């Protein structure tokens, strides 16, 4: 297979001005700034130029080297601000790199946003033409594919309705349909599948998969590991503008999930004597008593907490919520739930406490811990959110022979089903079941 995209030493720099608060520049400010600079020069001719010290360079991308072969389906993953979108923007020529060189062999279409250039006043039909033209299709080409697009989007009935009257689902479907029929050799897609209902997302992924079967190359940015797993073969991991890893998807996704962002520790925050209760540090410990945050299901994990009590207190507790990625509390636990005397009275001093995370019931996914210290349903002395987190993974074999994907549900509980084969042919139960048969 031939190389279609070759990226050499690619870097992109943004300059952030610290003095400015506005989003954009105004000439008036620039002139005022210059004049102030000149004034300063006259007064202190030898001092360094102030203006430069106010600007901070920020490398959105730094020394990226990458080679993509024809037909590759490449997923790009990384935390927010890792440079994923900037990379796509540079590749699609929206913005220019600061240094480096990219050689692209083939027609590129980029889909960084669904429905760019859609005008709410125009009808569906008109917007198909407009959007197609913006994405680089000719009029003849759009006409040829018009029916196919309408079909895919399922909006036949509303073709002559202004899109401002569309439901958001219809809007997204139409927009994606136009983009999906671009027929580029290289398709750059940014997180656009985050919209639309599940069925449509599936349809989009399917369409993109088909596209790649025709020997087309796909670049796909997403936060949804699930979508990346389904669509891509290779994954590129970016972190703070640098390419950290590139290779086979399962390995890289695991590396990503295990990476730093889910912090396993909160280092000592120092004392805070004015607070009645104060959390000092948190650490997640694996079996070997080393801090870690990527666990297999059922693997032992201890949460170790140090806190201060600064005044004598009664009727207080520490509560910890285990929260999933969509901010739902899965499990909540408190330090007095079992150990009830603790609730009555606490003397000033530093304490260490620990509990075992219920990794046996947590389903695959990422979780964060929320801590609150205080009176139940009352005054909260200290609260910590989003600081410490962990992820749970499970091998497919362990979750049972029937599960190819993540088992549905918030929690996992292995439940024993008792099954026997009946001796005789099954007869319908009498209309009133015999009481006491199932030990209610």
């Amino acid at each position, binding site marked *: 297979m031939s190389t279609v995209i070759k990226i050499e030493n690619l870097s992109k720099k943004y300059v952030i001005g610290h003095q400015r608060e506005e989003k954009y520049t105004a000439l008036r400010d620039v002139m005022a700034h210059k004049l102030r600079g000149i004034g300063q020069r006259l007064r202190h001719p030898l001092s360094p130029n102030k203006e430069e010290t106010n600007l901070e360079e920020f490398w959105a991308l730094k020394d990226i080297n990458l080679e993509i072969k024809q037909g590759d389906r490449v997923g790009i993953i990384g935390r927010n601000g890792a440079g994923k979108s900037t990379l796509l*923007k540079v590749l699609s020529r929206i*913005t220019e*790199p600061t240094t480096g060189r990219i050689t692209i062999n083939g027609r590129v279409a980029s889909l960084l946003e669904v429905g*760019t250039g859609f005008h709410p*006043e125009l009808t569906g039909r008109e917007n198909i033409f407009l959007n197609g*033209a913006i994405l680089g299709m000719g009029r003849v080409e759009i006409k040829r594919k018009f029916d196919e697009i309408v079909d895919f989007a399922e909006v036949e009935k509303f073709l002559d309705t202004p899109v401002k009257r569309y439901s958001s689902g219809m809007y997204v479907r139409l927009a994606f349909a136009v983009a999906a029929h671009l027929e580029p050799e290289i398709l750059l897609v940014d997180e656009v599948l985050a919209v639309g209902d599940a069925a449509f997302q599936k349809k989009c992924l399917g369409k993109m998969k088909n596209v790649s079967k025709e020997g087309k190359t796909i670049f796909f940015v997403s936060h949804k590991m699930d979508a990346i797993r389904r669509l891509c073969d290779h994954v590129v991991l970016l972190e703070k503008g640098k390419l950290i890893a590139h290779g086979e998807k399962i390995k890289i996704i695991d590396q990503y999930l295990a990476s730093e962002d889910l912090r396993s520790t909160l280092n000592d925050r120092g004392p805070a004597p004015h607070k009645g209760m104060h959390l000092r540090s948190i650490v997640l410990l694996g079996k070997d008593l080393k801090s870690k945050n990527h666990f297999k299901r059922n693997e032992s994990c201890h949460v170790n907490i140090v806190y201060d009590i600064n005044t004598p207190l009664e009727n207080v507790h520490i509560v910890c919520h285990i929260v999933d990625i969509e901010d739902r509390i899965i499990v909540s636990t408190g330090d007095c739930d079992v150990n009830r005397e603790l609730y009555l009275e606490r003397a000033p001093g530093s304490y260490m406490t620990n509990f075992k995370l219920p990794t046996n019931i947590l389903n695959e996914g990422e979780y964060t811990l929320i801590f609150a210290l205080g009176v139940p349903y009352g005054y909260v002395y200290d609260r910590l959110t989003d600081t410490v987190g962990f992820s749970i993974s499970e091998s497919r074999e362990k979750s049972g022979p029937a599960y190819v994907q993540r088992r549905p549900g918030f929690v996992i509980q292995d439940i024993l089903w008792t099954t026997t084969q009946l001796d005789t042919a099954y007869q319908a139960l009498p209309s009133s079941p015999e009481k006491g048969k199932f030990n209610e």
Partner: protein
Amino acid sequence: MKKDIIIIEAGRSERNYWMDLWKYRELFYFLAWRDILVRYKQTIIGVAWALIRPLLTMLVFTIVFGKLAKLPSGGAPYPIMVFTAMLPWQFFATSFSEAGNSLIANSNMISKVYFPRLVMPTSAVIVSFVDFLLSFGILLGLMLWYGFVPEMRIFMLPLFILLAFAASMAGGLWIAALNVRYRDFRYIIPFIVQFGLYISPVGFTSSIVPDKWRLLYSINPMVGVIDGFRWAILGGDYQLYWPGFLLSLVLVTTILATGIIYFRKTEKTFADVI
């Protein structure tokens, strides 16, 4: 099919730019089509709006300059004389403000899709040109009403329309690029449009300007454009002031050329600053 090879490098987009512009030629049409469609969908009076505005301005100018101030019209009926100038002026003024705001108004497109950015202000100028053609219809009506027959010079008009187009593009490109970079240019646009109406010979003929000042007066490129229009349409003893006209011609060309250069130089950063 020949494979397109794109090389992206800092400061490198020059090579395929003009080819790209050609590839995206239909986008000019579609963007102009969108703007016209939207305009006439949103306003109740629709097309009429493009006609009412110049007609009313013409009426006011005729009354103020022709009837009250009693300025000379140079032979032709005063309304026709004013309207002949209104055509290029309105064209320039709408192009200037529409093109100037075109990039900001479509900032989501700029930051999400690649296309040669020149398409945007240019299609704004094209939309204004459609208005221009509509107003031209009014002029024909006025000429019929007054029984005014133009001379053979009218066949030179396309050349002056071209000049008006160049002037509109020149102003539009500069202001569009500057407006992205320095957002306070949006306050300057209406000012220039309003001010320009009075310093350009729209309500009066440029012959009332004393001879020794005429060359200086022609530094305003629209003077040359408007005089050209009047020379071609009105005919009669309407004479072109050649030194001034040539000066306007040179200025329009220079501003257009530098406008394109400046636009090309800054357009790579549009997506970053918009």
